[in-house]
């Protein structure tokens, strides 16, 4: 182990040290001043983000080839850290308001981000698994953070049980792969898989790994925990985990499949095709019947997992894979920006006693809070995939990759389910603009700043997507 090993994961290492220090420092911060902890957590994330950006262009392996530093990991680390910052910004006022302001919240959020970042860097299945647990365990705790609240406890427990279940699949899959390839290193697995005919053991192991990740990214039929966990968890936690955990899950999934399992594409393409189509269809259709905004957004996030999964389908086609990976990464930005914004608005409208979460509670929002309603409309329109928002650009990028790979039917399913989605997203807009009501809205600087900035970015970045496109398409996985 050399110093260079640590610089490979420098942002992760910094954040880990910072998180531990913060845990101690929090003891000395008085109860009524927990805002300081939030500030320190944000500072740690920002420092880590700064180091991440300073690594751009750097490419190497570390820890005897167990973690990689490349464009792909830098891209995702930056995105995960930004999600962390947004998570802190949304939690700052929310925790105070809900009387659950405790310093551990921010520490757990940092640990979860560390896990997420490691998932993007891992090129060894053991590290993937460790990182996944490091990501998940703090999230289980966070879900149950409002602990006297039964819903929150239920969410935590449910998430934990199904999370543990899915980890079982993942570990079993890794074990089978180890049995077939005698290694857990992704490159070595690739070498073993391309050397001979694909062994059924390897294929089965890969399928189990896919199931394990399927739970994390909430793909149908592994999505059952999502609505309950998202609804029961404190909203600020939901916002964070629906973005961060999903990004990390996709990061690892992309890394593992594109790097190690490309010889399995013959078998896997159809499976991914079905998974993606099923997720889009089921997520969007069930979302229609939801009356609770948190559940609706939960199903919406399931549906979006389906859209992002489209990017995986052509992964075995060497000519299209870079484009489709770039499309997937770009969509992760789109999803993070829009999703955080929408949850920010939900937090603003939610009330302490647990009211303000029905879609009908948004009635009349446009009259008294026009900017908030406009921001929410922008997020909804972006989730549908309509101009002039990032949602359209993201979907177009995805559809193009899928068409390029020759999967026109999947693209047709994608656009048809988008039409279905318009129905339930517009219902929020209908309530805000076309019905009367007096919603009570929480105004607080960081909260307003977060949704305001995200709404602006959703429109503005869609007009100049050039930079993001270039960034996403240069964020390639380096094959060492």
């Amino acid at each position, binding site marked *: 182990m050399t110093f260079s090993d640590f610089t490979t994961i420098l942002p992760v290492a910094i954040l880990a040290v910072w998180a531990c220090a913060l845990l101690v420092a929090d003891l000395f911060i008085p109860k009524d001043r927990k805002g300081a902890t939030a500030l320190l957590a944000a500072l740690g994330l920002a420092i880590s983000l700064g180091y991440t950006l300073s690594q751009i262009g750097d490419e190497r392996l570390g820890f005897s080839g167990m973690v990689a530093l490349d464009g792909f990991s830098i891209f995702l680390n930056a995105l995960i850290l930004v999600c962390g910052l947004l998570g802190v910004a949304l939690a700052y006022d929310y925790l105070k308001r809900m009387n659950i302001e405790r310093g551990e919240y921010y520490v757990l959020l940092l640990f979860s981000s560390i896990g997420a970042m490691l998932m993007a860097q891992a090129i060894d299945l053991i590290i993937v698994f460790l990182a996944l647990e490091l990501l998940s365990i703090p999230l289980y705790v966070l879900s149950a953070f409002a602990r006297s609240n039964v819903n929150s406890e239920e969410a935590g427990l449910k998430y934990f049980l199904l999370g543990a279940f899915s980890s079982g699949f993942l570990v079993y899959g890794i074990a089978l792969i180890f049995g077939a390839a005698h290694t857990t290193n992704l490159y070595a697995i690739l070498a073993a898989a391309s050397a001979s005919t694909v062994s059924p053991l390897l294929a089965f192991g890969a399928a189990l790994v896919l199931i394990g990740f399927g739970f994390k990214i909430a793909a149908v039929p592994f999505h059952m925990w999502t609505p309950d966990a998202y609804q029961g968890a404190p909203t600020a936690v939901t916002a964070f985990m629906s973005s961060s955990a999903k990004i990390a899950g996709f990061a690892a999934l992309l890394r593992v499949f594109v790097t190690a399992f490309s010889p399995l594409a013959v078998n896997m393409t159809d499976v991914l095709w079905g998974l993606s189509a099923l997720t889009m269809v089921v997520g969007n259709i069930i979302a229609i019947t939801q009356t609770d905004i948190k559940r609706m957004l939960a199903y919406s996030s399931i549906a979006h997992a389906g859209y992002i999964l489209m990017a995986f389908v052509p992964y075995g086609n060497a000519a299209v894979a870079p*484009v489709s990976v*770039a499309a997937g990464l770009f969509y992760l930005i789109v999803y993070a920006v829009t999703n955080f914004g929408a949850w920010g608005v939900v937090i603003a409208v939610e009330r302490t006693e647990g009211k303000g979460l029905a879609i009908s509670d948004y009635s009349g929002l*446009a*009259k008294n809070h*026009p900017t908030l309603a406009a921001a929410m409309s922008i997020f909804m*329109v972006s989730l549908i995939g*309509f*101009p*002039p928002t990032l949602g*359209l650009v993201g979907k*177009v990028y995805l*559809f*193009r990759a899928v*068409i*390029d790979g020759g999967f*026109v039917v999947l*693209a*047709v399913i994608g*656009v*048809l389910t*988008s*039409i279905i989605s*318009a*129905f339930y997203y*517009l219902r929020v807009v*209908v309530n805000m*603009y*076309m*019905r009367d009501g007096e919603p009570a809205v929480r105004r607080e600087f960081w909260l307003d700043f977060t949704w305001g900035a995200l709404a602006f970015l959703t429109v503005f970045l869609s007009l100049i*997507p*050039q930079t993001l*496109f*270039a960034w*996403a*398409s240069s964020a390639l996985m380096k094959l060492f």
Partner: protein
Amino acid sequence: MEFILQPLTLVIFFPLVGVFALLFIPKENKDAMRWTTLIVALITFGISICVLTMFRAADVNLQLVARYDWIVVGGWNIQYFLGVDGLSILLVLLTTLLTWISILSAWTAVEERVKEFMIFFLLLEVGMNGVFLAQDLFLFYIFWEFTLVPMYFIIGIWGGPRRIYAALKFFLYTMAGSILMLLAILWLGIYGNTFSVPDLIARGGIPVNIQMWLFIAFALAFAIKVPMWPLHSWLPDAHVEAPTAGSVILAGVLLKLGTYGFVRFNLPLFPEAAVSAAPWMALLAAIGIIYGAAVSYAQADIKKLVAYSSVSHLGFVMLGVFALNPEGVAGGILQMINHGVSTGALFLLVGMIYEQTHTREFRLYGGLWKITPVFGTIYLITSMSSMGLPGLNGFVGEFTVLLGAWGAGQNGVFYWGGVWLAAISALGVIMAAVYILYMFQRMFMGPLGEIVEEAKKHGRPIRDLNWREIAVIAPLVILMFWIGLYPAPFFNLMAPAVNHLVGMLPLP
């Protein structure tokens, strides 16, 4: 700076200046909002007139081109590409004209949430002009979809009792059609490595069987917008529930986005497919003409009647376009303008009387002529224009279209159906006279109607048009006579472009 000062960029984006200004006007100051919006819309109209003066009709190429790279990275080649030619110049003028007319018409009709209304209206103008001027498929698609959003709000917020249903139906219907077009656009982008329409046309060579699929994907989007029978069912709901200004823009411009799409994209991009689809499209158009006219006759609601008459009138446009000869296409484009002018005017007039009586059941009216002679006269002229009386604009358009369709029947473009398609469609002209005269007679002739008496009893007798209302309607009436009596300038503007377009088609 050079980028912003392009005339076409200005036409499209100048309304955003108004949007920006409106954001800073306090909520209570409704008149300031109205004036700001009107002035911005008038300046936009002025800019479009400048574009007209710079436009040279003899040149068949795109003019006043603004072309910059927009998203050129990682296999994408999307340009900010605007241009105007004979096919679009008149439609741009129609858009900028109808926008300020609609804003003026909403002066007293919209009292609630004026700021939002005006913002949505100006945003709508941005989208509509963008659709007519964009020459890059991706840019076009963005404008095309964007027009849905402000219109959705205009119907949904300021509409009638069933406005939410109508707005949602409008949104979902149109989106359902256009999203398949997105896939076709992406396919074309990958195929040609460019989204530029002229480049794709020049490249050509799309295999005929694929052309068929692409044609269908584009046609579905446009046919829903037009709307062609049998995809029209969103239109009556949207029209009946929309506020007057919304109806005017919806009928006047938004429907033209569909017919324009056929002319601009379907014909030149997929010429072989267009030729083989011609009689089928003409058949749908003919059914639409007859069906729309017949259903119009059965309506009791004036707005519904006019909405169904739009289905009939736009059938003529489609018949002309798919006649695939210069007369047909030119007649079709002129008919788009005519429909915008006449139907726009009809919706305005209906709105003016509705503002006073709050009913659109024309059986409740009666004898209006005696009380409101100015209103009656203008209504009569507009009705005559809509039913195609010689001397007014409707006749010129419909006659040219039928001429084109007859020609297409004779020279084999309608390789089945022949002249019968034209002959059946001609019946629509007669049927139009029936339903329009029926409505006119019920409203203006005979004894005073129920609602007229009731208004008098409540101390608010129905008044004639005021000066604002006359100013709103006057430009349209002038256009009806101008196009009706001397259509040559209009045909001259589009003739070279139309001939060029038809020349590209592999006709039998």
